[in-house]
């Protein structure tokens, strides 16, 4: 039965066919589970023509949701930048007891599911929560209002900037900064002229990821916002509301704006990755 010859003649033929088969399978599966759902969002959003699409986007509640989502992103970004740089500087440039523990706590939000984060916030600020009675006495409104949405968004997006900047600061070391200090630069000058230019792409990368997440966060925000129509509804929550109203085309119109943002983020990510490598 030609035991030696069979593998020799079979192997090359198999080698040519197997890659084609695997590539075909990979492309088909990706089309089915990633590409079609993505295309479907735009198809459904525009299924009744552009006029209806525009009308859906311009609906007062949806416009307000877009506005609120923008406000949340604009408030959280500078806080995330400052805290991210601070944390990275602290951990990369100094040694102190509890340094590893601090890093673990900073990264903790990545291991806690956002919906659980929302539950934690409610257990803290809710009516029967830890601080609930104090807040009620002082007539301070955190839950079901902008402060709650901002706080929980900060929880969910907190680690992004530090996670991008810290490894870079550690890899670069502090020689340049030490040299600048010896030459008489002030601390602020060192940061602006030496540190910031060195970390700018990582900083931008972290900022893009954090903002994308702030705009798209659903679970955590849905618990603390109360989803009050036209008041505390962010754009992702508005999608659910329209979906529950059976206004499917309206829901897809809202979803398509978030999808566009996601695609822009992907392009930005690719550009920044090209810069840093």
């Amino acid at each position, binding site marked *: 039965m030609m035991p030696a010859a069979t593998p020799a003649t079979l192997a090359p033929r198999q080698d040519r066919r197997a890659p084609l088969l*695997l590539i075909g*399978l990979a492309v088909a599966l990706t089309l089915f589970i990633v590409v079609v759902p993505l295309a479907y969002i735009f198809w459904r959003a525009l299924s009744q023509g552009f006029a209806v699409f525009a009308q859906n986007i311009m609906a007062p509640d949806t416009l307000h949701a877009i506005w609120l989502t923008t406000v949340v992103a604009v408030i959280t970004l500078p806080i995330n930048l*400052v805290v991210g740089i601070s944390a990275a500087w*602290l951990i990369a440039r100094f040694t102190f007891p509890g340094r590893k523990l601090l890093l673990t706590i900073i990264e903790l939000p990545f*291991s806690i599911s956002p919906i*659980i984060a929302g539950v934690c916030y409610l257990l803290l600020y809710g009516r029967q929560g830890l601080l609930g009675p104090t807040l009620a006495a002082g007539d301070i409104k955190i839950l079901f209002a902008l402060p709650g949405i901002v706080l929980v968004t900060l929880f969910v997006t907190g680690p992004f900037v530090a996670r991008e900047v810290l490894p870079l600061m550690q890899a670069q070391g502090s020689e340049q900064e030490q040299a600048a200090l010896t030459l008489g630069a002030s601390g602020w000058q060192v940061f602006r002229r030496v540190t910031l230019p060195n970390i700018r792409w990582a900083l931008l990368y972290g900022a893009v990821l954090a903002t994308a997440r702030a705009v798209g966060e659903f679970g955590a925000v849905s618990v603390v916002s109360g989803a009050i129509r036209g008041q505390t509804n962010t754009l992702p929550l508005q999608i659910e509301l329209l979906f529950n109203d059976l206004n499917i085309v309206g829901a897809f119109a809202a979803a398509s704006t978030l999808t566009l943002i996601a695609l822009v983020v992907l392009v930005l990510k690719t550009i920044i990755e090209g810069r840093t490598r």
Partner: protein
Amino acid sequence: MSVAAVIDAPARRQKRVLPGFGLTMGLTLTYVGIIVLLPVIALVLKGAEIGPVRFWDIVTAPRTLAALRLTITAAALATVFNALYGLLMAWVLVRYRFPGRRLLDAMMDIPFALPTAVAGLALTALFSENGWYGAILAPAGISVVYTIWGVAIAMTFTSIPFVVRTVQPILEDLDHSQEEAARTLGATPFQIFARVIFPAILPAFLIGTTIAFARSLGEFGAVIFIAGNLPMKTEIASLLAVIRLEEYDYNGAAAIALTLVAIALVLLALSNWLQARLTRRRVPA
């Protein structure tokens, strides 16, 4: 001034040449304290307040058990698919050159970039009876929306990138000499994969799979659209925690949330342990 402070002093003076220790420490601790620790402490305190007996009663109540069972089963289904699909994608993207490869690679980032509510909406509409997929599946008697399969599909979509993105770099760095040795010794392509390549990427593969499973367990946004959220049937555990909150049953919410956090932390510890093993093994090589 303790002895420890005196011993520490020279090291500290040396390190604190750079300015900003007090400022960055203050900012970081303020952030960590208010944003991260305070809410987590609220959860732990609430959990401690319940007491072990009541805690056990809540977690083993039929509705909680059904929710946990659904969440874990659906997450396991999603993870099995993603493990196989992720391995296939990593292999195809690293080992073959073909037109459209970079685009295919970029597609792997879509599920992370897309907000989960958007993914949930799109999948629900696609798989509902008059959607593109649902219209094909319905005549075959397969319904996805409002079943465990819907939950699993939503979880699958949002955790697609984990296995691909952890296996890909390891596969890229893999030394080809062992494969060539195996080939000259007469191993078939399948034998080479099973005996040479797979053992080398196994730790990364397991890390990716573990994170994908953890993410699936925690997924909320995509799932609630497609699940229908019927108590005892298609209600995931995290949704039950939120429902308990809305009923002002803070104890019930805290007990379920703590259970989910505990599972997540065990999975995190597992992936860290695998990571440590992976780096240990890679350093000498």
